[in-house]
């Protein structure tokens, strides 16, 4: 018997669209493999929503992906201009709400309220939005367990590479430190600065042209994004650290001369995010590391982490948070939830 799950997607930028496409193309495979069928019954963006009970067809999902930003509600006959989350819930109570709005570290909105609303309505959550977990991790987890629903967020850290799953599998260990390259955009910029000797601003422009960096790159280059990831990791490990206590460098201040100097010393400058559990310290620092260090060879948009425990050192290298990688991580969380509900 095929289990049908109705989901709604909140946020329809790059990640939301990648997820819609992925579901359009992989639903049949998922159905054959896991006996579950994912029906996307609603999609919301900042200006409205589309809704279809029973779920959109692959064709409809792809047509929605062709629409310009913030205009899903123009899709006829399923569009509802200026509809909000509560309007969707008045028609459709989904099995899972997928939160893919952008991260906002000032107050977590709109993601935080969206997620709280779902939890109150006893709806499971999958999120790639980091901010709510950075600012209100305990509150969200408590509420989810009180309402007996699942909340999953592995797309928030290293997306395409299952670090959160791995950390959850280390419950019997004492994790001493986690350090590595947790931001693909800044790693790409640094790689360009080393390999092509571009200045910071040239490398940034290239990253923007390739769709790797945002028009406003501050969250990445000022270290907010990797710092937020450290906060989520610290919470998953059970040793929470606040975002304001993460010491951050600013990549935009890095002079190309520093790169020349490092090259001469046979070293590489990397934007290293580090979490030291014993000392309860976290930082995102431009760090000169020797060429032999495994992190020195992690280039482009790749991510990597080293986890040191009382008995073992584990290194994980893989693709980080591209649109497609993030969508795959979300799909994985979705399948895990649907299997248990």
């Amino acid at each position, binding site marked *: 018997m095929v289990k049908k799950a109705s989901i709604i997607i909140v946020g329809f930028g790059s990640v939301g669209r990648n997820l819609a496409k992925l579901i*359009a*193309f*992989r639903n*049949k*495979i998922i159905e054959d493999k896991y006996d579950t069928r994912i029906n996307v019954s609603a999609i919301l963006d900042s200006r409205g929503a589309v809704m279809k009970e029973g779920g959109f*067809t*692959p*064709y409809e999902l*792809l*047509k929605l992906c*062709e*629409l*310009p*930003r913030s205009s899903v509600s*123009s899709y006829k006959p399923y569009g509802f201009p200026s509809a909000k989350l509560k309007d969707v819930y008045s028609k459709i109570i989904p099995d899972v709400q997928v939160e893919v709005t952008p991260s906002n570290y000032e107050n977590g909105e709109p993601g935080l309220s969206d997620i709280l609303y779902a939890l109150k309505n006893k709806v499971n959550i999958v999120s790639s939005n980091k901010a709510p977990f950075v600012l209100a991790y305990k509150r969200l987890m408590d509420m989810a367990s009180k309402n007996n629903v699942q909340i999953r967020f592995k797309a928030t850290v290293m997306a395409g590479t299952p670090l959160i799953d791995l950390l959850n599998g280390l419950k019997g260990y004492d994790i001493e430190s986690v350090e590595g390259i947790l931001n693909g955009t800044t790693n790409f910029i640094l790689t360009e600065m080393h390999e*092509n000797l*571009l200045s910071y601003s*040239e490398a940034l*422009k*290239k990253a*923007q*042209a*390739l*769709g790797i960096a945002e028009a406003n790159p501050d969250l990445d280059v000022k270290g907010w994004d990797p710092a937020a990831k450290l906060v989520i990791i610290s919470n998953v490990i059970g040793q929470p650290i606040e975002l304001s206590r993460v010491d951050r460098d600013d990549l935009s201040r890095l002079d190309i001369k520093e790169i020349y100097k490092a090259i001469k010393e046979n070293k590489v400058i990397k934007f290293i995010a580090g979490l030291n559990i014993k000392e309860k310290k976290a930082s995102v620092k431009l760090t000169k590391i020797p060429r032999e260090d495994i992190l020195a060879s992690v280039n*482009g*948009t790749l991510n990597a982490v080293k986890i040191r425990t009382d008995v073992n050192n584990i290194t994980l290298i893989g693709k980080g948070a*591209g649109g*497609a990688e993030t969508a795959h991580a979300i799909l994985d969380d979705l399948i895990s939830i649907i299997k248990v509900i």
Partner: protein
Amino acid sequence: MLKDKAVVVKIGGSLLKDGKSYIKIAEQLKTKFSEKGTNLIVVVSAMKGITDKLIEAYNGSIGALQEVTNKCEEAAEHIGGSKLKRKVCEELIRLEATFKLAFTKDPIIKDLILSYGERISKKLLVEALTLCGVKAVSLDAIELIKTDDTHGNASIEYRDTYKRIVTSIPILLNENVVPVIEGFIGSTSHGVITTLGRGGSDYTATTIAALLGINEVYLITDMPGIMTADPKYVPSAKVVSEISYVEAIEASLYGGKRLHPRTFHPLINIYSSTVRIGSLENVGTAIVKSLDIAKRGRPKLMTYKFRLDHVYIALIGEGIHEHSVISEIISYVNKSNLNYEGFYTFKNRPSIVFLFKNELLEKALNTLHNLLLGK
């Protein structure tokens, strides 16, 4: 079966001049294929002249960039009004941002800039098809067509590409949806955009057909098919109805229709679809894997190219290199009083090549055509 009902159709840029021509093509695709129950996979090139303008833009011309913007906006407005114009403008804004990077003279940036020609053209054609009542969706070559990292002349990685298209295109065909995908572009395993080289859309089309085991690939241009000779010089030139892959490859080596050199690679190595070349009104030429014996041993078409102060005219046909055929051709040519400087042929190559002084081109083409291809 999918492969018997489906065809791949590549629309060449020569047909895509303005908004009106997109709508015309969409109508023709509908009546010729969709309405007859044929499942279509459309591969689309950039609008006419746009790729050249984008190269100029990469080389620093703001004027060329402006021309691209104007032409694309005009076409978008003609086809789909302000809504389509907005979609196209989203792309144009990104193109403009990329243009500002062109100072770095980086092949990655060049490919990125060139890719917008096809990406915008695809949006226009999808909208035109939708207006005609065809259920069409856009697929992204950047996600589906995986290549090596030879920027400007990338080769398609068949295995990676297969995994992606086999999980997407058939789902759409089963829903009777027409997928439209950009030709000429792809991306590396790291997701960096690449281009396949001039004429790369043909290569995209044959690759998709071969990987999905589809029997027919249409390469649609503004000509009725491959001609026996260049009609610019030879008024009596006709369409050749059937040639083989090797003959087509040989013709393109000697200046024939500019097919991408790797167009036939997937057909030779994976699955041998028939390639049909022509216009939508009249698809005159079929290019097949192998010919009946009766169709070997005589020239079928002639092409030419200039090199230094000579023009090389190639008579093309499988089996032509055999001694009896060569001597027959030479004796014909000798009787004609055509003053050639020399000729050559290679073992197992389907051609015999005559060298003439440049100024004799037109006369030589016409005389040879009358002698050997006229009937």
